[in-house]
């Protein structure tokens, strides 16, 4: 149920983000979801892409520092309380969310939230047990 997320180190300089999108665009890699965490000096761009291996190679070859992180894509009902119920569940099991970001699927009434947990395996086990829908990595990249 884990998905591969690509993380890229970016200095806070004009044009760096555009350089990433240019490289991905030229390699015909599609971005499914993204989040950008930043400080005053640097940022970390996190991406779910249509072709992880290709994207990783292209960016590495261009000199970027890239990392691979296992994240979990959880389908959450797109109505008030949907996310809260999920977080409540995780809290009770002592699982911490390192970070998360969401995107809404074009079809249907569900949102997808990408989670980075401190205990990924345990989280997947819990969510499976509670019958909460997750999207496997290979599906996610093809959405």
């Amino acid at each position: 149920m884990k998905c591969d997320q690509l993380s890229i180190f970016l200095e806070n300089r004009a044009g760096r983000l555009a350089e990433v999108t240019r490289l991905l665009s030229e390699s015909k890699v599609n971005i499914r979801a993204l989040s950008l965490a930043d400080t005053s000096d640097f940022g970390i761009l996190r991406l779910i892409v249509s072709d992880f291996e290709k994207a990783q190679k292209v960016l590495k070859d261009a000199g970027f520092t890239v990392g691979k992180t296992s994240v979990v894509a959880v389908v959450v009902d797109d109505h008030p309380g949907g996310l809260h119920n999920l977080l409540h569940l995780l809290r009770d099991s002592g699982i911490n969310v390192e970070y998360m970001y969401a995107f809404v699927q074009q079809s249907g009434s569900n949102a997808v939230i990408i989670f980075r947990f401190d205990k990924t395996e345990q989280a997947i086990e819990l969510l499976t047990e509670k019958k909460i829908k997750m999207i496997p990595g290979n599906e996610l990249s093809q959405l």
Partner: protein
Amino acid sequence: MIFDVDMETMPREELEQLQLRRLKSLCERVYENVPFYNKKFKEKGIEPGDIKSLDDITKLPFTEKQDLRNHYPFGLFAVSRDNIVRIHSSSGTTGKATVVGYTKRDIRNWANMMARSFAAAGATADDIIHNAYGYGLFTGGLGVHYGAEALGATIVPVSGGGTRRQVMLLKDFGSTLITSTPSYALFLYETAQELGIDFRTLPLRAGIFGAEPWSNSMRKDIEDKMNIKAMDIYGLSEIMGPGVAIECIEAQNGLHIMEDHFLPEVIDPETGKHVGPGEVGELVITTLTKEGIPLIRYRTKDLTRINYAACRCGRTFARMERVTGRSDDMLIIRGVNVFPSQIESILIETDGLSPYYQLVVEREGNLDILTVKVEMSPGIFSDEIKNLQKLERNIQRNIKEFLGVTAKIKLVEPKSIERSAGKATRIIDLRNQK
């Protein structure tokens, strides 16, 4: 005013005779009393008797800072410990301090040189001298202190820190002279402004500034803002402390080297040979009179040139140009010596860190700001901000712990630090760009 007229205005020919006499006696002393020099002389196949003219100095071996470290603490002392009355030491930030010892006569000579320095800056026994150099193992505070007393002036031993109080004391005591680092002088000025005190209305009329690199434009700035004359002073603990050379208020053009005590040379740092007259090179000093820890041809690493032309102040001592650079890559950050290699070893001890780094020094207001740029590498990369910030804090803590300097750590992208001719540019010093 010239404090020591006999010496400071001695005709060059006489001065050189005096220097030669003292050089011969120095060689005998170190040959007899310092095993390190005895060995060095023998390695070079020379004896003290071989020194027949000042030009023969090129036969003598060089001494480097590392030699002092290798003989830590007292290994290069030339007199027995009971003749040493004071010890000073460099910051020793890596545990490899250089230790120097002074006999009673050394302290007296040093005080005399500092008294000459004050006089060169226009001071007399009537002056009140505000001394904001740090007191302690650092030579600045006590060196200035004894010099002011030798001159017969009134010394206010404020030392460093407590800036607001210093401003009040400057005003209340009506100090006429100040000694500090140039950046601290400007900090005092700004603090005074915040307190609503105009330096221009104070009796202060001159300052002696040193212990860190500063530019001529910074001098102008200090002189304009504080309405004083600002003199550059040179010294280093291995040689003596402050007062090795001083600018005169008459010319403010080059620092007169106390040539009766120190024999200066300028060499090409690569070849060790003398450079041509008036050319820039590394300053090398032989301590002609020092008893505690005399040094032969000490390589200061400071780049300068020497002007032997007569000065309008009447002193015959040669003048060295304001030191603008170093032949090694040492940085002085807020009075602390920092070598890039020290930063490098700290970075290397952090697992996975890239060996590419750069030190950028800027002056914000009047404070030196050191930024250490470190290239990101896969080994240390994390997709979580907090991990990278923790990494920055660790590096910062280690640098503070080992070097005593607070540095700003900046993680940068790989290859973003410029490689010039295969070798990285380690230092970007923007302090003198004004």
